[in-house]
């Protein structure tokens, strides 16, 4: 049997990669995808814990997270599209009129 630690470690790695994506990519869409990866990593941890704890709560939570992710995606993509229409770019580095 695989120790739960390994799963958590994997989830941590994925999470960190996701976070890195937010930090280093300039494409709003990819940043967004990276956030999805972070959520996904959390899901892995939850399912692993759920299995280890022998409790379905974790899995249910994963389900909700997926739903929320879907909702976020709807709003997020709409926002990105809207921004693109006015700025003709989804480079987050160019979305910096507000600063100081």
């Amino acid at each position, binding site marked *: 049997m695989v120790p739960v630690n390994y799963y958590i470690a994997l989830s941590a790695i994925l999470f960190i990669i996701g*976070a890195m994506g*937010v*930090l*280093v*990519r*300039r494409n709003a869409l990819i*940043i967004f995808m990276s956030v999805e990866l972070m959520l996904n990593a959390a899901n892995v941890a939850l399912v692993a814990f759920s299995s280890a704890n022998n409790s379905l709560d974790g899995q249910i939570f994963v389900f909700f997270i997926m739903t929320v992710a879907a909702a976020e995606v709807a709003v997020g993509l709409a926002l990105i599209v809207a921004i693109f229409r006015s700025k003709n770019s989804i480079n*987050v*580095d160019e*979305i*910096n*009129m*507000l*600063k*100081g």
Partner: protein
Amino acid sequence: MNFSEAANTGLFFQLAPLLVFLPLTGMLINMIFGGKMSEKAVGTVASLASGSAFVVSVLLAYSLNAVHGELHTIPFAEWIHIGTLQLDWTFRVDSLSTVMMLVVSGVGTLIHIYAIGYMHEDVRFKDDIKRFRRFFVFLNLFIAMMMILVSGDSYLMLFVGWEGVGLCSFLLIGFWYDFDTLGQKSTANAEAGKKAFIANRVGDFGFLLAIFTTFWHFGSLQFDSVFEAATAHPDPVVISAITLFMLIGVTGKSAQVPLYIWLPDAMAGPTPVSALIHAATMVTAGVYLVVRSAPLYSLVHSASYIVAMIGAVTALFAATIAVGQYDIKKVLAYSTISQLGFMVAAVGMGAYVAGIFHLATHAFFKALLFLSAGSIILGMERGHHHLAHGHGDHDDADAHHDEEVFDPGDMRNMGNLRKQMPITFWLYMAGTLALAGIFPFAGFWSKDEILLDAKLHAEHFPGVYWLLSLAAFMTAFYMGRQIWMVFFGKERTEVAKHAEESPPVMTVPLMVLAVLAVFGGALNLPFDGFHNLGHWLEYTIGHVEGLPLDLGVAGISTVLALLAIFFSWLLYGKNPLKEGQPDPLKKPLGFLFTGMENKWFVDEGYKALVITPFEKLAKFLSIDLDWNFWHDWFHDSVLYAGFKWLAKFLSEPVDMGIINAIADKLAEWTQRSSESLRRMQNGFVRSYALSVLLGVVTILGYLLFK
């Protein structure tokens, strides 16, 4: 109840407050109604106010005599009561204070009367008639303050008067505040007043410390309780401290070395002021203070010696300067300093009677001299006006300003005034002889007593006698010089030729003073059965051995004085000074005379050592330290700019700034990142995310590894 009954029962003592309030009333009347009164009326009110104070003084003296000098204190008002600090305004009538009262109000009244005439002309020469009234207001105020000084029953009341007369001195020196002594527009007179006040304040500072020390060691400021406590527990350190602190006050008020510097400048005041305040009364307050504190001074010899030496040194020092002066009033001013030195030396040696005796005679003859000098100056002014305007048209102000500067007080401009101003001449002669100490004039007796004391106490007070004798010699010399220069020889200017004699309102009081100057010695003749002043003062300062006339001392001093006058005749009388000729002493004495002429450069020394450093310090503190450093640099640059910098630093988020700095150093991207630095303002989502992650990492790090 008849008069003597009233005197015997001490009823008159209740009049003591009037000493102060009569002059004050005069002052108030002139202040409030004076504007609508004629000059004569104003002068009369003021003179009456002062004169009535004299009457009261006489009554007090009479009553005191009637009760055999028994001390009387007349409580008048509570002043400050805090805990053990009980300060009341109580009048003290004893033999010492009555002498002072008599001198002050007596001489004062005469000078008031004289001033009516003097100021009448002075205000016209200076073209500001309105100021006539102000003069008498100040003068009355001065009398009131002087009365407080001499009649107070505690050190504090003495101090009140002490400061009060200082104020009057300031006001009167600066009376012609918009002129200088030559009548030119200037701040010089005002500065002189300020100088006097400040020098006096320095003295007062010492006096204050003396008062504090007294209070905290003897628990009171009332004279008798202080003396009682002091004699009960004579702690030499404390009493030395008190007496020496007091001495600072004395040097300030009585113009002793090193604080005398204000007095010569004080001649900027109208001449009656010089006579009254800066010769006869106020400046003797220091002498009075020492005599008043006799029980303290007699307890510590070292302090007394310092007092005596200061007096003696001053006497000689000022006399040397007087020799080199050309201004008639300046000579008298330095002479006053010198004579005050005699008095201080006397009281320092414990010769209180001699000191007070000289105080009184000096008041007479020095007032006489000053007022006569005033008469001379006015005479010169009259001559000057006569020449300038033909008919003495005072109103032509413009013409007045355009004239060449003429100094009516410069002895080099005079000469042979005996002819133009005969009355003044004779009066002046009386004063001069008294001052020079020629038998039998008043000065002879009092000065001799001091010299005798100095001689007798030479073992305890070494050097004093010689200094004083030398000073006495110089005194006779410079007075002789003055007489020859002013009254004899040829007129050195046109003005001198046209000088005019003064009116009776001025000369009559002078005559009274002249009489006093001639016969004043009668106060305390050194013969058995006389010693009147000594006996009178015994009531206050205890028994004093009346000294007999010492022919040796008297002879030496008389010979010295005559010799000095002879020398002066040789130098100034035999070959009168010509116009523009330098002083004959200049050659033989060389740099010494330069020193005398320039007052030994003391003023310059003060300027270099005290005033300039002070101004520099003030400038440094206010401009550099307080404003540039503290206000601008510290507040604006450090606090404000530092804060702004911090705000800016943080607003380009702090973590970014730090990271930036580190990154720059690590990778040496400095050049390349200058462009990105500019763009690295805010507004980048990714940077914000970085900040979030940084927070996460930090918090987790802390929680996991703490």
